[in-house]
């Protein structure tokens, strides 16, 4: 896996940009929990083949959660979630935590699922609707010789039949793909006598260290900078 710390670092940067007035320690903690929790699917690995990068790392569950949240808080006349939150905190608190939930969903999709999508065997993006791993890799450039070139999605057209074949980095299914993680450091199918080496990565490449640094920088900069003019003038009035 891309280290959980890398996900958390990028998540901090995104959360700082999206939380706005709700930015504080508790809101950050909730967003980070939403981002980190899906990593628990590593522990399902011993019981379910290919569970890691499948159960917690797909686009279907965030989409379903977003649909439910939208339906409950925007479409229904009386939102069950808002009422329950209002009972426990206050009306303003309910609005705040619903906004934080939206941020959590966004950040989980971008900082967790998408970053794992571009790493190793990728993620089982449409599980449970479709069991197929996708790994995104490629580059985009404009060249004087070849014009606009992108290699993320390969489209091949068979010159004889005219049939199209699209390759968006499809890999195996949860039966055949194992993404190594500290819980299961190697594919359970391989048999070897070597001692088990569990590796807990912090950053396995420069750019991952960079993303951790970005998150920490945003956190420290937000602490150091003074109050916003908006809140200051509020206090004065």
């Amino acid at each position, binding site marked *: 896996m891309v280290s959980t710390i890398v996900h958390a670092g990028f998540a901090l940067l995104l959360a700082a940009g999206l939380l*706005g007035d709700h930015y504080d320690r508790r809101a950050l903690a909730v967003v980070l929990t939403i981002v980190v929790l899906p990593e628990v699917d590593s522990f399902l690995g011993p019981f379910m083949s290919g569970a890691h990068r499948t159960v917690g790392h797909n686009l279907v569950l965030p989409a379903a959660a977003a649909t439910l949240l939208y339906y409950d808080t925007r479409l229904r006349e009386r939102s069950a979630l808002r009422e329950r939150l209002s009972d426990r905190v206050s009306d303003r608190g309910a609005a705040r935590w619903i906004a934080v939930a939206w941020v959590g969903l966004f950040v989980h999709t971008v900082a967790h699922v*998408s970053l794992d999508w571009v790493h190793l065997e990728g993620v089982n993006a449409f599980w449970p609707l479709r069991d197929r791993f996708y790994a995104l890799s490629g580059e985009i450039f404009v060249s004087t010789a070849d014009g606009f070139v992108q290699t993320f999605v390969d489209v091949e057209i068979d010159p004889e039949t005219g049939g199209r074949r699209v390759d968006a980095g499809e890999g195996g299914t949860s039966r055949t793909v194992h993404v190594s993680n500290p819980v299961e450091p190697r594919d359970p199918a391989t048999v070897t006598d070597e001692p088990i080496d569990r590796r807990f*990565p912090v950053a396995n490449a*420069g*750019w991952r260290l960079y993303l951790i640094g970005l998150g920490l920088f*945003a956190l420290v900069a937000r602490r150091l900078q003074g109050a*916003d003019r*908006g809140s200051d003038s509020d206090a004065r009035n």
Partner: protein
Amino acid sequence: MAPTLVNAAVGALLAAALLGAAFDRRSVAIVVSAAALSDLDAVASLVIPGATNALLHNLWVPFLVGAALYWDGSVRDASWLRERVGWYGVRVAWVALAAFVVAGIGPELFGREGANLLYPVHDAYYHVHGRLVFSTQDGIVQTFVTRDAAGPGILPLQSPGTTGSYAIPTWVNPDGRPGLSLDAERKLYLVRTGWQAVVVAAATAMLAVRFGWHQATDAADTRPDDETTEVSR
């Protein structure tokens, strides 16, 4: 150099995270430009040997600008900058400086090409390559920082060379050396790896959400008054 689009995208993410009440179209444009600005040294490399990732990718320029901003804002009795452009301008200036360093120089330093951090005082490119892993067999494995790295560098980082020995090809200057090479093939990279694609997509989504939000709240909210309001930081 890392694609300028990636520098700009990180700059946009920083703008959203740090501008606070100063966030609007103009300030975001300034911060994103600051993030992309450092890549202009590729143009200078057409004349100055090895200027790419050196002339505007060293730490002296941002250090001097930062010192000037700090002196003006915190040491002097009355801040020249705040008198002219108000709280808004001071915030934008600091965030633009942060974007220049973190979004402009950072991706080069942590990417494949490297940045000439101490140029022109000491001429060596540096890049941060390696891993930091805890392994149950090998303990802590750390290869980002190395004391005894081979190469011309004096910082404890790996160094791919100096402006004389190491040329960085760009679309402006395909061979990295002075002189126009008009016939050479030019490649303008937009995104070089998967994670860069994620960063660009994240920045696009972030700006869409933030500006969509603004429009939604602007209707109900009166706009904050212009820069004449002054509040001490």
